[in-house]
């Protein structure tokens, strides 16, 4: 589906969104004031961050945490908080440091 539909004649019938997952084109990463930094050396790949992330922003590869989808992560910090206390593989840092 086209992202910017100009004419009413081009809309799918009935207001449906005729493809899955089109929200990926919408970036919610700029909502963030804190950025999660994932340390793969500390990570034990328990996947707690993955199961609890509300924004599906923990990217896995072969069952291991590969990276964090910063285009969609809103910086809620659930991942860092849920990372086991003895592991602490995710740290929330000020987003301003990256601007």
């Amino acid at each position, binding site marked *: 589906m086209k992202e910017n539909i100009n004419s*009413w004649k081009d*809309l799918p019938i009935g*207001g449906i969104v005729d493809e899955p997952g089109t929200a990926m084109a919408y970036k919610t990463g700029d909502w963030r004031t804190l950025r999660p930094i994932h340390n793969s050396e500390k990570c034990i790949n328990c996947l707690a961050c993955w199961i609890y992330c509300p924004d599906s922003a923990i990217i896995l590869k072969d069952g291991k945490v590969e990276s964090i989808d910063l285009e969609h992560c809103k910086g809620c910090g659930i991942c860092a908080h849920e990372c086991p206390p003895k592991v602490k593989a995710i740290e929330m840092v000020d987003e301003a440091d990256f601007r």
Partner: protein
Amino acid sequence: MGKTRVARTGNEAMAEAIRQINPDVVAAYPITPATEVMQIFATYVADGLVDTELVPTESEHSAMSAAIGAQVAGARTMTATSSQGLALMYEMLYIAAGLRLPLIMAEVNRALSAPINIHCDHGDTMGGRDAGWIQIFSENSQEAYDNLIQAVRIAEHSDVLLPIMVTTDGFIISHAMEDIDIYSDGEVRDFIGTYKPLQPALDYKKPITVGSIDFVDYYFEHRRALAQAMSNAKNAILEVGREFGSKFGQEYGFYEAYKLDDAEVAMVCLGSTAGTGKDAVDNLRKRGIKAGLLKVRVFRPFPAEELAARLKDVPQICVLDRSDALAATGGPLYAELLAAMFEDRADHTVINRIYGLGGRDIKVGEIEELLSSQVSAAAGGKSIDRIGYLGVRE
């Protein structure tokens, strides 16, 4: 072509049509005087005469909601209701239309409360007249049956894809037995064909999202497309009406004109009163009064131009409304017909622009541009579209 003459009440005739249509899903809640339609149909389900899943819901709101769910899923779906039941569905009527679902409803006209009253008027249907449903009125049991069969083709027409209600007058038709012609199951099924949903939600391999939220950026365009579908329904209704005529013998259009050609006075009405009116016209003609009658069959889309053209040469017109718009301007049929006829007869030019749907902004400049273009069109003797849209992305 096999016709069988049988004695059927309006409700029996509608139930017979639904049996022949053999919808995939029927969802309904009982209400007088439409209750019988579903009661009879339930016996067909119980006897295995149809493939239908019957969902006997706990309210009309849920009946329409379940019907919407079923149709979205990919099933040809029908329901039946009346009066308060239709009123309880109003919210969902708009949604069925907005989602462009070719749902089919057998509606038995009954007055709205308060006071509570079980008998016929058209107030229930009129309450849903701006909901985006096609509305076809029936004069008698035969038309109720014929109209329901045509309704499937009209609603599912690829240029239309809108819900449709076929109405009959409560008790007057719904509970009165009349002789009607029933066509064979095979011929009805050939006529309606099989339902091919555009993008069924059950197709999990091609997941779709139905019922999303629009902001100012898209709502107007979605509604514009919906309006176009209603406009397209006019051709579909005529096309299907003609094909029905060539197959079953009785052709249908937007209206039926009775002794109208030389009429000095004509009555205009909806539903069963048209039959009574024809007898009145005959009696008046015997008394030397050139009377005529125009029965409006299709109320949505409103065939404004066609009705105005047909009544152009009739000097005296009397519109009979079986509902009151409570607008201090008479009944809805009167108001709409009057508007349709005004264009040809008035000294004014009155145009209409639909704007601002879904919160779309309207700016000073746009209003200036619109009004000045109307003035300059008038000055230059140019025509200007009577109805149009302002601010939609064409």
